[in-house]
């Protein structure tokens, strides 16, 4: 029997395309579900994240004392893995496996720590934004050069 490569390849390609499409479709659904505002709180840690539709995000965090600090940047979703960067250019400290239920967003760190953080869907209070807006956020700049002769 003559081996019909064409007949064999076509289903495989179709299957792959289907899988890819399914994956894309799954990512699209996940992405849609991630978009929104989320809140995590534990002891003296308070974190709000707003994932926007256009890949932008806002992060408001209050860790211990002081007021909320705001970070911004881009987020990406690929094959169910959430990653992102800060506006300054640095990547997040980890990428995350994501699970979204109706009211919870679970991020599982993939940097080896496997830390699990569960956020609940919650609007960011205006007071949080206001608090963060007051901060004259000092970026870390390279320290001055050491004293040199000239």
């Amino acid at each position: 029997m003559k081996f019909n490569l064409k007949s064999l390849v076509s289903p495989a390609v179709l299957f792959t395309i289907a899988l890819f499409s399914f994956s894309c479709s799954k990512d699209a659904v996940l992405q849609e579900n991630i978009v929104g505002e989320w809140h995590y709180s534990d002891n003296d840690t308070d974190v709000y994240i707003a994932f926007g539709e256009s890949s932008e995000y806002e992060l408001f965090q209050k860790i211990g004392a002081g007021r909320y600090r705001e970070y911004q940047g881009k987020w990406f979703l690929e094959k169910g893995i959430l990653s992102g960067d800060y506006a300054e250019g640095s990547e997040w400290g980890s990428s995350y496996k994501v699970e979204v239920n109706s009211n919870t967003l679970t991020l599982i760190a993939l940097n080896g720590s496997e830390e699990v953080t569960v956020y609940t869907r919650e609007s960011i209070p205006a007071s949080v934004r206001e608090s963060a807006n007051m901060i004259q956020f000092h970026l870390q700049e390279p320290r001055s050069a050491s004293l040199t002769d000239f």
Partner: protein
Amino acid sequence: MEIRKTVCIATAFCTLTGLGLLSSSCEKNVITEDDGIISDELSTKMVAGFNGESVNGELLLMLSDEAFKIWSQGDSAAVADMVRGDLDLTDFRPALPVRPKNGKLASELGLDRWFVASFTPDLDIAEAGAMLSLSRGVELVQPNRSGQIQPAGQVEHFTPDTKCEPVFMTDPYFRSQWNLYNDGSLDSRFRAGADVGAAYAWNLCGGDPRVVVAIIDGPVKYDHEDLADNMWVNEKELQGTEGVDDDGNGYVDDIYGYNFALNCGSIDWSGEGELGHGTHVAGIIGAVNGNGKGISSVAGGVEDKGRGVRMMSCQIFYGSARSASDLQVGNAFIYAADNGASIAQCSYGYDGGTYKKDNDYINKWPFEYRGLKYFTDPSNANCPAVESNVAVFAAGNETSSYSSYPGALPLCISVTAFGPDGLPAAYTNYGLGCNIAAPGGDDNFGQSSKILSTGIEEINGDYAWMAGTSMACPHVSSVIALGMSYALQLGKHFSSDEFLAMVYASVNDINSSLANGVKQCPDGKTLELRNYYGRMGTGAIDAWQMLMQVEGIPSIIVECGKECRVDLKDYFGGGFETITFTSVETDAVYKDALGVVSASVDDGYLSIRCEKKGSGKIRVKAIAGGTYAGGPGGIGGTEIEREISILSRGVRGWNNGWL
């Protein structure tokens, strides 16, 4: 026995003669044991440098235990007899005109054992001192010295420029005040950000009338249109009877403070040669903000963000006299503490390099030193938000590589000065004993590079320009006042050490501009900037950062199981070249909770490895403004300690980010 005494007297006179100050003979002062003279402690009783210089021919003496005991029993005549010996005293009275409120502390400091003795004019003051030092009723004797005020530099009348539009405040001259907000637009040579950061801080706090700043200086013109509403007012005296101590604080008619120069309640700027120095200083701290008049100030109040702090005038200079006595200044500190001041603003001092260790200063100015100790003792704290009062001094204007005293004492803050270009002012002292920098202005770019503040109309106009560390100093005082105000409003409380460390951390980096290059000055002087590198204090004071320190510094996130290197800028400010880290300590409970296996600090970074997730604290100790701490034996930096909160978790993002 009598020979021994004579020898000792002769020794005393030889000591004085050795200083080139005494030529009297011994014969007329033959003293018997019955006169109460002993001699073994002569050398320690006479304060070093006894050169006859004394205000009104007065001597300050500290009674011995024996004499003080008799005094305490009410037999003042017996004490006077014991002290005077054969000397003809014209006056003998306690150095404290009023018993301090905190009598226990005053006694512990020995303040109540100090007395003033005056003599007939024909008697040489040094000879009298030598005689007194031999009395068993006397523990220490020294002249009632006078000290020099920091020269303010040239005073210039401010010509109002009506074209200037205020940016943040409605006060018409605000736009000329680069020291409050410098965006570089006033002059292309000005450096944006070379200011005190007040315009940002006003978003949160404008001051609080519960915070009182004592201006220990020349007179504050309390009825100035831009100062009157922020003056400390002793209402009982204001509403009371002239010539009567209506509030019973021991001082008569002290409505806006007290005039220690003339020993009266009336603050007086009519003296010939008056410069308006104290009034200029006051305007920097608390000229009324937003009243549509004159200038703005760091802590002069902001609508909806707190009324301004209050200013108390403790006048120690009168007219052209640029000096005040040990007694006057010491009593001014005690008055300030007893009448509610939380901050002593002191734009004066003894030339940089005159004293190079604390003990040299303390021995020369014992009453002032004890007054300072009294003011800063926690038992006398007047602001509920901070455990003790704070004393701030100008570093001095002699271009010396030493801070002047008393500012160089570890219990004081010594302030250096920079101009609108963010570079050291040509006159500023720097180096050992200097703690922090602030806008002081200079001559480099004409009048407008000085500091504009309130003046005295008949002397230099209602508003005037001045430059000096005298002007830098009130910037730091007022930022501290703002910090105390905000802490009161937030209901926070800080220990003395904690608050001091917060002040030193409330700075912007100044060293990055000083690594190389020169600054040309109008008088032809060239400053080699590298001489100032790491020697201007921890950095340039910033009001916004002070308020952030009061709000609290966020925990540092470290990634569990990994060595993390974390910037400590928020905890120690930006001037790491002037911070010497000495140790990192972790209490056992936190060490266990976090699983801390290593922790060290280098170049402003904390390197730490935690093996467990959780929260905890570590303590980092450092020397601010030097490589070693100053103390009795030498001038140096100030020890500070910060408690740093740590959150150990699985992820740490850029710049302490959560993701």
